């Protein structure tokens, strides 16, 4: 088929990263692209002309003045050591510790991490490890902790798979993506069994427990 089998039901991790790379992030440029008013712009190629994101920020970079650009451009600039990336507020030891506390205290829900936390953390640890204020190995271990805590919660939640619906607030995109084939398939089968029973007239009026909140 025109779309490979493994992509038909879900996204590949690379595609998830692609989606995340379209998010804005703060950087400190190390180059200046803003044209001085009195200087006539001789070379048109010095202008950024982009078709998917706002190019105003890129045409007005001043070295060491923070600005916001799309993540993939930030990574490209970083590769050329033309900027340093500012880690988001939740990616500090203190904030992560707070999240870990929250996760431990509330066993029935996930903490409010951004939907791209796992992917963004991985990208920044690999591509911009020297831009963090906190030591990277500590951040890494905390991300790992969070990941494990949430995974155990997911495993607990899988007990409640049913034929009606689930609510999964604050589950991140990557976590959803790795669960998707499993959850969807199981729930589809449960639904088929259920509706087959209804069709066969076997419904004995037992009401399913509704609204499983395994968030």
């Amino acid at each position, binding site marked *: 088929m025109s*779309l490979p089998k493994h*992509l038909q039901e879900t996204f590949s991790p690379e595609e998830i990263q692609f989606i995340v790379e379209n998010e804005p992030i703060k950087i400190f440029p190390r*180059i200046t692209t803003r044209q001085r008013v009195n200087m006539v712009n001789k070379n048109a190629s*010095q202008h950024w*002309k982009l078709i*998917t994101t706002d190019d105003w920020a890129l045409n007005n970079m001043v070295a060491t003045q923070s600005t916001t650009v799309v993540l993939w451009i930030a990574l490209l600039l970083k590769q050329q050591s033309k900027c340093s990336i500012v880690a988001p507020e939740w990616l500090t030891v203190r904030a992560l510790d707070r999240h870990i506390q929250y996760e431990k205290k509330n066993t029935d829900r996930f903490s409010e991490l951004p939907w791209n936390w796992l992917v963004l953390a991985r990208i920044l640890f690999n591509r911009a490890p020297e831009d963090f204020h906190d030591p990277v190995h500590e951040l890494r271990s905390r991300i790992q902790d969070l990941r494990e805590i949430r995974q155990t919660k997911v495993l607990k939640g899988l007990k409640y798979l049913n034929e009606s*619906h689930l609510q999964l607030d604050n589950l991140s*995109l990557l976590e*959803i993506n790795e669960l998707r084939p499993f959850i*969807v398939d199981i729930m589809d089968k449960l639904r088929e069994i259920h509706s087959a029973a209804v069709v066969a007239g076997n419904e004995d009026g037992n009401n399913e427990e509704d609204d499983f909140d395994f968030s």
Partner: protein
Amino acid sequence: MDINIDDILAELDRDTTAVDSTGHTQQGNQSSLSTSDIPANNTTIIDVSPQQDFKQLMVHWRNERCSPELLSYPAPLVERMLSRIQSQMETIENISMGFLESMSQGPSDDNGDKLTSHHNDSKLPLLCMEAELERVKFILRSYIRCRLQKVDKFSLYLRQFDPIQLDDLLSAKEKLYQSRHSEILLKLLNGSVLKFMPEELQAIDDTEGSVNMIEEPDWNKFVFIMVCGPPDKLFSEDPLLSKNEYGKYCYNVTIAELKEDVELTLDSIYVMRYQVVRELIMSGKVQLI
């Protein structure tokens, strides 16, 4: 005494943004070109910025990848994207030609040291523009391939539609692909197997027999959804939205088969049957993830 002046401040804010947006429309002359058939009042032009279009395309792509059925084809959007890709390719070409020129004639009118630093800088935008182009093309390619895969799968099902519905559903090229591809497939099946069958068993789209041969989309397939609310963010004007006991906005949907009502609160993630949220997806109030 507290006087709430939020609405007055909002009024003032709106004024400044109005100035901003007119500036934008003058910049984005390309977008106003593509919508020239629509009566050009300000609001429509602001909606069609390249940034917005790309966001829309991402949403369409993600919905298409996750949904069990073939969604309708956003023809104007794809056309705008394609024309932008075309013009961007030409721009890149032009700029790189400029490079060659200034390289060959450069040293004569400038000192060498300044020139090299100058050139390093100016290659960066070009690099980004090329990378961006690749990214847009990837999305479009992946989107169209995903649709073609569904066209393959639902080939017999799509044949039942009348041409007007198909116009909305498929692009011209997809329609061509669909008709030609099913023709070829039929020829193969007819020639190799079906011609040896008794008359009444020769139909490829038999719905009377023990198994329905037309594969329909699985309408009740479970999908992951994100409740976004109305695209224009005017929560109070959406008739479907209501407030629950916690004061949060939510949509009320009913799963017919189970006779069960579900509240879809804003900004939450659910695993839900596709049929139940189909209308909300079509209107962009819910996204598939």
